[in-house]
């Protein structure tokens, strides 16, 4: 055991107490578990606060009282086995789950202090403050240029000079400019998969989002394209507040500042990435990140 638990934390069970999957077994049995949130997470200023958030699909509860601050200007990774609610949580942030008829929620989320699920919150305005990239590249059936400036177009921006500037800045930001600058007018559907995904990232950052949501952005890409997108996420670090869902431990450890481990709709442990991967508080987390479970 390489963990070095902080003695100040009273909830910390002794390392020798039971098998590594103890808490997970409790969760699987439907029991309550107090999440382990490191002190350093609480101290950083948050761009997004998730406060006792519950979500049901029909009668099945998918998220159980999630409470976590997402730090401002940092990359936060959500990890956990399939079906643990990572993507659901991500899609709750920009209220894409509103499109699913049977969804019901309680609890709150705040984007820079504005309640996301407030009655008075205009969903369309809310989504304009965020960017999102999906598992599979989903470029729109239009030119590369129009794809990038889509968010501005629907906002009514039609000044060519503004659009041109945003297009170049976003494509440079997504490390795609040099590859496509000579064919901005061509269909985006003609790009390769990796290029399409970087185009989607360019589209997401075009409107200067307050938070960037990445939902397993590399899961449909080949290793080389994955490498390029990961490099890109590294470059976005510090420029944007990023919340990324990933299945890939290496990816989480390489490119994120903070990591949250989720299991069956509950937050288990949340802390700085280096701590989570090298000296997690919980044995369960260590078991997961080292691949012994999950």
């Amino acid at each position, binding site marked *: 055991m390489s963990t070095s638990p902080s003695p100040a934390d009273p909830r910390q069970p002794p390392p020798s107490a039971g098998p590594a999957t103890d808490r997970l077994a409790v969760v699987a049995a439907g029991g309550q578990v107090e999440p382990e949130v490191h002190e350093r997470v609480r101290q950083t200023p948050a761009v997004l606060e998730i406060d006792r958030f519950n979500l049901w699909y029909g009668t099945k509860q998918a998220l159980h009282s999630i409470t976590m601050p997402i730090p401002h200007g940092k990359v936060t990774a959500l990890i956990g086995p399939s079906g643990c609610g990572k993507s659901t949580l991500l899609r709750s942030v*920009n209220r*894409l789950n509103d*499109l699913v*008829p049977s969804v019901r929620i309680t609890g709150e989320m705040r984007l820079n202090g504005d309640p996301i699920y407030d009655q008075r919150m205009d969903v*369309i*305005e*809310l*989504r*304009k403050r*965020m*960017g*999102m990239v*999906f598992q*599979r590249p*989903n470029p*729109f*059936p*239009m030119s590369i240029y129009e794809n990038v400036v*889509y*968010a501005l*177009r*629907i*906002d009514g921006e039609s000044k060519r000079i503004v659009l041109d500037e945003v297009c170049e800045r976003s494509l440079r930001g997504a490390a795609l400019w040099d590859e496509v600058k000579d064919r901005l007018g061509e*269909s985006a*559907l*003609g790009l*390769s*998969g990796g290029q399409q995904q970087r185009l*989607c990232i360019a*589209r*997401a950052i075009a*409107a200067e989002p307050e938070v960037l*949501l990445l939902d397993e952005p590399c899961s449909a890409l080949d290793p080389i394209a994955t490498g390029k997108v990961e490099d890109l996420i590294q470059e976005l670090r510090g420029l944007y507040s990023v919340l990324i869902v990933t299945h890939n431990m290496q990816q989480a450890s390489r490119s994120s500042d903070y990591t949250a481990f989720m299991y069956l709709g509950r937050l288990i442990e949340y802390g700085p990435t280096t701590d989570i991967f090298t000296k997690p508080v919980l044995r369960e987390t260590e078991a997961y990140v080292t691949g012994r479970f999950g």
Partner: protein
Amino acid sequence: MNSDPLRRRRSTHAALAAHGEAWVWLTGGCLAMAMAMIIGLLGYIVSEGVATFWPRPIELIELTDGRKVLGEETGRDTAPDGTGRRLVRTANFELTGKHFEWFDDGEVTATTRPAEATVVERLEGGRFQGFPTRLLHGEEVVAVGGEEAWLGFREKHPDIRRRWREAWRIDKGDRGVLQRKLRAARLAVVQAGLSAGADSPAEAAAAAAEKAVAAEVEAQERRLDERTADLRAGNDGWGLEFTTASGETVVLPMADIVRAWQPNKASFQERLGVYASRWGEFLGDDPREANSAGGVFPAIWGTIAMTLIMALLVAPFGVLAALYLREYASRGPLTAAVRIAINNLAGVPSIVYGAFGLGFFCYVLGGSIDELLFRPALVADGQPTFGTGGLLWASLTLALLTLPVVIVATEEALSAVPNSMREGSYACGASKWQTIRRIVLPRALPGIMTGLILAMARGAGEVAPLMLVGVKKLALDLPIDGTFPFVHPEREFMHLAYLIYDVGFQSPNSQAAKPMVFTITFLLVAIIALLNVAAIWIRGRLRRRYVSQQF
């Protein structure tokens, strides 16, 4: 011995059925059968349709009873007792009372193909066949002898034909314009009487205007009369004298001759000339002789105009309805019921749509339009304008008929748009309508075009409902012409599919009309194919632009 009952028996080779060989043959066979039927039908129509206008040789047939007949053999069959017989187009209806005649092989003693045998197409009375003898101009004999008369005819005929055409154009076009002008002035008087009261100053003014118009029209009519009289005088007296095979002498006025040819001695080029000229007349002229000869130009026009107007009407209507059904309506029993009802609409007999079109569009809608806007025509002439069948109502009726096809195809196309694209758009802050307009519709366009192609093919070949809502046997006034307001969607029109029925089954001279039926069918199929090819080309472009996903 294998005694264990649970042990699975392994075969050493896969069964034939597992390879699926049989299924390949079955599926391939079905496709081959469908192809054979389609190609057979189309091939028959094309071969018959293309051959109609080719000048075929005519034969002088001598019979056992001493009669001599000149005619073109058009068919042959065998009686039950084994003797053959032939159907001969003997023409010369005014002499024999027949266009066609059957001859048993036993009756025929000899057949020859005399070089000077001539076929004449006339404006009226069907074909004439005989041997030219003299070219006459009034009392004067211009040329004597078969050869000379024929050469003289060939020399004079184009001028005579040109003069005839000009007179015809004046009668049909210019006089029609004058009559319409007169009618408009007359209706203006009625309108003034209706709106300002009888004996009002307004009516008096309109009446004065009508008088002026009438005087002007009369002057112009006189000028046209002079012009046509001039033209006709140039043609008068010219005649070609023929001897028929049975020995009668007939003089045909040259102005009545549309064209004539001597098929037995014509060279290939001359035959080709006749062939081209007959196709030209077919495609560009009005029909003659109860539609069994001449051209079908108004019907081509009507078919294309109606199909395009129908497509223009059904496309937005169907697409918007499908959009609501797929994108906005919540899933539930009501939506399912609506969807089933739409599918069932496709199975309603088309004549029911025709009856609905007549009852609702023509009588209710058209009647109201007439009451509101065209009251003078109703009062003065008792004549409906929109209150009867017409191009607009026929197009609307067919749009209704093809609506289910478009809705179903559009719904399919919309549901084929990946949800990830919608989500991507929403995530960018787009509203539902923005997402539909900018992402979903462009992406679904090729599929929508497929529905439109099917609808056009169905609509262009439909006859039954059209008979109730505006298609006529003869309607020479095109829905677009030079008189104000230039577009006349209320006019009745001709349609190729109806013409097939009319020429094929209502013609007094059905044997002569039969080849025309094939030619018209060929033309209709060609037009539908052309419209479809155009639509498929557009769809291909859209698909390349919006759908193709290459990695």
